[in-house]
């Protein structure tokens, strides 16, 4: 059960978001209603993944958990209530949802990589709080493996979709390595700073900042470990730069063709990547006509980002198929898990019959009966007692349809339609030595 960016506005998600999940998990999990739980709280979703024996009771418990334990004071007046925002999935749908979340198919930005780390953190926190048992451990491990498969087998996370990341990726299509490159930031803006950050993550080390206001340039220079310059130094700075990022106010271009042409002569025809994020644009469009210069403005980057997003949307279909396949695999495991108590009871019953019959046979052996007769009686007794209950039930069926179904189940359970094996392997039987 939970809410995400599609069902709840940010103000509502904030209201239920939680940082330290351990105390909340302790309140939520008990032996009867919620046996296991993991809490996932990110900027885009607040979700409780729970394991419960009775669905209806668990539903009420989870709802009150959101209302009482997660809510930070009275609900905000944002035109959306908790009941409108909450969604719930159970059974196979819930499994599929967890796999979709971990694989970033359910994310606001399709294929974004952060969510997998956040799901792993949530799982680790639940494990540390002791609220994660056998089922959820298996579920989350399977979710991580599914996310890995989606990432490896599809291109859902391959191409960036933010303008800043697109700029960094384009730089990597021009330059072999960013380690020896120099970036020149002209002006300042959130987008240019993000693009610069992304390039620094790719190894960019040298940064120069030119601004109309020296103080602002110095502030940015200290933040990016670069040097501050005045705008008048632009011609010399252009000759040294490999990447130029501009975002500065004004209606006239700050970087003109002649300046770049001169700079190119002084730089041995090394390529120059110019990212113009200014609106109005800061770089003369004719700069793009120069050989070795690659000029991208906001719209150009936006188009590349949109094309990448479209590619991710196409990949989503393949990712959904992988998630479905893995969810079915997990459901199979879960179904097998449900059979465990029945198998245990069946074995206990058979074992009790075997022990009783063995006691009886040993007593008869002591009273000097023939061993052959004793063994005959022992094995017949075990077979009769094992088959007594199922045979009685088969004979006692009154409802014709149910009777046929039971008969079919019996034939399947005892493999009556398969060829009788010559010798059934015993569980205790050891392979014979040479």
């Amino acid at each position, binding site marked *: 059960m939970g809410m995400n960016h599609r069902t709840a506005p940010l103000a509502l998600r904030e209201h239920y978001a939680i940082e330290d999940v351990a105390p909340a998990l302790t309140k939520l999990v008990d032996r009867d209603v919620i046996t296991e739980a993991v809490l996932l709280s990110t900027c885009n979703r607040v979700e409780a993944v729970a394991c419960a024996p009775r669905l209806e009771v668990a539903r009420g418990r989870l709802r009150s958990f959101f209302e009482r334990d997660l809510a930070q004071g009275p609900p905000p007046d944002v035109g959306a209530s908790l009941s409108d925002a909450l969604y719930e999935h159970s059974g196979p749908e819930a499994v599929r949802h967890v796999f979709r979340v971990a694989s970033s198919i359910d994310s606001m930005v399709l294929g974004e990589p952060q969510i997998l780390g956040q799901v792993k953190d949530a799982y680790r926190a639940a494990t540390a709080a002791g609220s994660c048992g056998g089922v959820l451990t298996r579920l989350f491990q399977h979710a991580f493996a599914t996310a890995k498969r989606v990432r490896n087998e599809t291109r859902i996370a391959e191409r960036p979709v933010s303008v800043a990341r697109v700029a960094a990726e384009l730089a990597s*299509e*021009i330059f072999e390595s960013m380690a020896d490159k120099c970036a020149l930031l002209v002006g300042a803006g959130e987008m240019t700073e993000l693009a610069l950050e992304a390039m620094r993550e790719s190894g960019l080390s040298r940064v120069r900042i030119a601004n109309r206001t020296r103080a602002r340039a110095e502030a940015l220079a200290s933040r990016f470990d670069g040097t501050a310059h005045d705008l008048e130094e632009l011609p010399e700075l252009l000759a040294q730069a490999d990447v130029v990022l501009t975002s500065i106010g004004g209606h006239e271009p700050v970087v003109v063709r002649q300046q770049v042409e001169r700079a190119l002569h002084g730089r041995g025809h090394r390529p120059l990547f110019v990212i113009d994020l200014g609106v109005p644009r800061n770089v003369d469009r004719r700069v*793009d006509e120069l*050989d070795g210069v690659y000029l991208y403005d906001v719209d150009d980057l936006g188009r590349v980002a949109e094309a990448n997003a479209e590619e991710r949307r196409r990949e989503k279909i393949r990712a959904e198929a992988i998630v479905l396949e893995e969810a079915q695999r997990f459901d199979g495991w879960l179904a097998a898990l449900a059979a465990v108590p029945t198998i245990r009871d069946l074995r206990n019953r058979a074992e009790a019959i075997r022990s009783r019959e063995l006691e009886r046979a040993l007593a008869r052996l002591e009273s000097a009966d023939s061993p052959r007769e004793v063994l005959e009686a022992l094995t017949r007794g075990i077979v009769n007692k094992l088959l007594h209950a199922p045979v009685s039930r088969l004979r006692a069926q009154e409802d014709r349809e149910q009777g046929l179904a039971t008969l079919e189940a019996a034939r399947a359970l005892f493999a009556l339609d398969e060829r009788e094996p010559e010798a059934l392997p015993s569980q205790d039987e050891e392979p014979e030595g040479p």
Partner: protein
Amino acid sequence: MNLHALTEAIYLLAAVLATLGLALPQPRLSRAAVVALAGGALVHAAAFFQAHEFRIPPHVSGLPGAVSLAAWLGTLFFLVLVRRPRLRGLVVIVAPAAFLGVFFGSGGLAPAAAPTEVPIWAQAHVLLASAGFALLGVAGGAGALFLVQRRSLKRKQSGSRSRALPPLEALDRVNALAISVGFLLLSLAVVTGVLWTVEREGRLWPGSPHASAALVAWAIYAALVASRWLAHQGATRAAQSAVAGFAILAAAVVGVGVLP
């Protein structure tokens, strides 16, 4: 086992994998193409030395043998370059070229019916010319990919396929290195060719169409190298020159050789 047919099959497999790796695009296929190409180079070496009775250097005298040798040397040069992972995309040019080289040069791999002694200058000439041809071929391939990559960046059409190709800077570096070393080897091939002619015919210039075409190609490359290093030619012009230069060289050396 027919090592020649095996070499052809492995190079063809590498070419198909490389093409699919770029078309889909799927980096795993490109990696597999490089591995296949390396395997092909090993089998190629075995086939070559078996055909030439394990002589070092092999006694290559004919054009098919020289083309096959060039394909092998070009593949080896690429395998050295590909230690830089970002140059892996070059496989899309190198693998088909290696296949075509072996396919065309099948005569050079066929076991010699009656091995003949090849003069030392002739051996040196063929080896140097093959190595030069191989490197200038790689330079041409890098130049072609540079132009494709540049076009997509200039047209703002960057996509997964551009990402699968090497970056412009790396392609330009390969182009510069291959063209410089290739030209040096080609120059040495011309010198050894002259020495061979002197030894054989007692004159400096044989006057054959092959010799004339090769000299023209050498002169063109000399101009390209001079404009690259002395006139500081830009990367785009250098890429165009490398492609055009190799086309002329291939036409001059191989074309003249196969024409009646």
